[in-house]
């Protein structure tokens, strides 16, 4: 019962603290809104600016050649680019920099060379002639003599035409800023359009078709995938930063000493704080999902396994918080050390970026971080609905919860030296 009294008092004290509420609930929600706005595609998707200088124009009337116009139309049809024309006589880079203005932005320029149309036409004819040659060679053993003679006469005429065609040149130039993180994606899109253009001209078809399916039964949005990671990360910060700072502050101000003089036991105090953290974390999860549902139409729903995992995670991070506050006397140091542990863990545990994106040594580090198992477990429980994956991570979290709770209890002094 005393643990429940402590739970009520500590929770009430926290609920009335504006800064506590902000960092425990509002800040995670704000971060969710930012991530959601970036990755959900709501609010109108922004297009990437692409400066296009088309040098393949008619000398007489300045009209673009058929193929260069068709290529620009194809770029436009992707709805990826905000295409801005660069005059023929301008230096493309200077023009783009001036056009972007003082606030800058990434410079991406596509230059369509003079002769693009002719090169493309010649190149296409050469490829088609090559195909006829290849077809003849493939079927030659099956032909009779009359057929062979007729084919060879036709091929000789094609050979003459082929020799009369000019060699094709590089027709497209892409200029990007090396620091532009979207540059690779933009180059791939332009290359894909060029390939599609080539296929169309030579009359080839894609024989391999892609069909995309989700690994989950429910079709989740990008924001759904962020909710377990963000929730896990902030359950971690609530334990490691907020609980450590609060407990150190209670200790500094003699509040823990005052309570220790009463019949309250150390275990009552710890249980009361863990219960308070669990409630806080369940509230955080519920609010994150509610905000996600209201604004981004997310479909993620925590099940019983998720709630058990959140409970175990709350114990684990409360245990770490108590361990730290047992070791640290100074409130400022507690906050600084809590941040120094929590923030790297947040980024190295795959909560924001998939672990595969990291170098192998960072992946090795992430495997010893408690948050990795907690966020993985939550993702398996809330998104993939894969119980086996949840159980393995839950087992690791449960073991760490016991270990840290024991260490935290041992380091929480109920009697002074």
């Amino acid at each position, binding site marked *: 019962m005393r643990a429940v009294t402590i739970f009520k008092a500590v929770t009430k004290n926290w609920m009335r603290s504006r800064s506590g509420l902000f960092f425990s609930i509002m800040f995670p929600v704000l971060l969710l809104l930012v991530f959601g706005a970036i990755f959900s595609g709501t609010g109108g998707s922004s297009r990437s600016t692409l400066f296009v200088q088309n040098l393949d124009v008619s000398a007489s009337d300045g009209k673009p050649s058929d193929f260069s116009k068709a290529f620009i139309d194809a770029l436009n049809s992707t709805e990826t680019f905000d295409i801005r024309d660069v005059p023929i006589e301008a230096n493309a880079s200077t023009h783009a920099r001036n056009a972007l203005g003082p606030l800058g932005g990434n410079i991406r320029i596509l230059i369509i060379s003079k002769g693009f149309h002719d090169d493309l036409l010649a190149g296409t004819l050469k490829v088609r002639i090559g195909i006829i040659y290849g077809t003849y060679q493939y079927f030659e053993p099956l032909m009779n003599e009359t057929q062979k003679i007729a084919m060879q006469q036709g091929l000789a005429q094609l050979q003459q035409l082929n020799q009369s065609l000019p060699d094709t040149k590089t027709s497209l130039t892409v200029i990007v800023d090396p620091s532009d993180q979207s540059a690779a994606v933009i180059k791939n899109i332009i290359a894909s359009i060029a390939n599609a253009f080539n296929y169309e001209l030579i009359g080839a078809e894609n024989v391999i078709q892609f069909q995309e399916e989700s690994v989950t039964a429910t079709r989740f949005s990008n924001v759904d995938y962020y909710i377990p990671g963000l929730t896990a990360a902030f359950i971690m910060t609530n334990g490691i930063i907020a609980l450590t700072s609060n407990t150190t502050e209670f200790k500094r*101000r003699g509040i823990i000493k*005052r309570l220790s003089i009463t019949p309250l036991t150390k275990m009552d105090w710890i249980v009361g704080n863990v219960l308070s953290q669990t409630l806080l974390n369940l509230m955080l999860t519920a609010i994150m999902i509610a905000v996600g549902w209201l604004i981004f139409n997310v479909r993620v729903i925590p099940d019983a396994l998720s709630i058990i995992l959140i409970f175990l995670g709350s114990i684990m991070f409360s245990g770490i918080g108590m361990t730290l506050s047992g070791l640290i006397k100074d409130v400022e140091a507690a906050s600084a050390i809590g941040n120094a542990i929590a923030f790297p863990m947040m980024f190295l545990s795959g909560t924001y970026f998939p672990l595969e994106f990291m170098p192998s040594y960072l992946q090795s580090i992430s495997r010893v971080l408690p948050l990795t198992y907690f966020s993985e477990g939550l993702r398996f429980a809330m998104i993939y609905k894969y119980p086996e994956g949840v159980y393995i991570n839950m087992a690791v979290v449960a073991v760490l919860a016991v270990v840290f709770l024991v260490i935290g209890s041992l380091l929480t002094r109920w*009697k002074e030296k």
Partner: protein
Amino acid sequence: MSKVVVEVDSLVKQYDKLLAVDGISFEVYEGEVFAFLGPNGAGKTTTVEILECIKPLTGGTARVFGYDVTRKNDVKEIKRRIGVLPQEFSALDKLTVKENIELIGDMYEKHLDVTKVINLLDLEDKTKERFENLSGGLKQRVGVAAALVSDPQLVFLDEPTTGLDPKARREVWTVIENLKKLGKTVFLTTHYMEEAQVLADRIAIINKGKIAAIGSPEELISEHGGLKVVIIRKGEEQLASVLQKRYGQTTMNSHGDILVKVDDVNELWRVMATLTDMKTGRDVDIQTPTIEDVFLKVVGGRITEEGELKG
């Protein structure tokens, strides 16, 4: 003879190389206000915290209500029976006065009606006020209320007025006087001489971990305070000479005042009669020794406002 509530014998507390409490012995009796008077670092709080069972002792014995502070089962009994106002009391900032007192009360199997305790400490107007918004004096009163809510038989008040302004200090004194009227045994620690003299039935002067003197204020003054002094303001040398001849122990200070030390009340009256007969017409003051004089005598220094030993 009153019942012994606290019994300390040859108590020692050692921190590495520092001997904080050096073999002290004393008793506290039921219903009295017992004051530990000494400078910072004298061993007051250490002794009290050993008795409150939150600090282990190094040597000797300490019993509260006959229970040994070192035995686990006895500690539970002691904690049920004591109320504590720790040094620099603090509580949960965002909780109200009532909620903070209830929090401490709920730690006990039984506790007094919180509203009654609030009324007792004149905190009715502040019931719904958050702790963070209270003045220093009000915070101390909340601390005393928290110490009383379990209806303890023995109340430890560790430096209850340190850092308070004179008005707030007087308010706390009134609270302590009321505790005595309620029949509570009060164990007070302080570095304020006047506080100990006004409030305590018995005082133990402690310095460097040892008790230098113990007894009622009157006993201490009588034993260590020295003589009463009759001061004749701006007296003449001729008058001083007469008083020296008749009573001895007469001096003049740099302000021209005559100081006559008197052995007892009878001699005091005789000096006064002489002055009346001689129609001196001078202002006369009688200086009575205080606990400060006692402290100066037994410790050899004074305590500053901040609690440091000087001189």
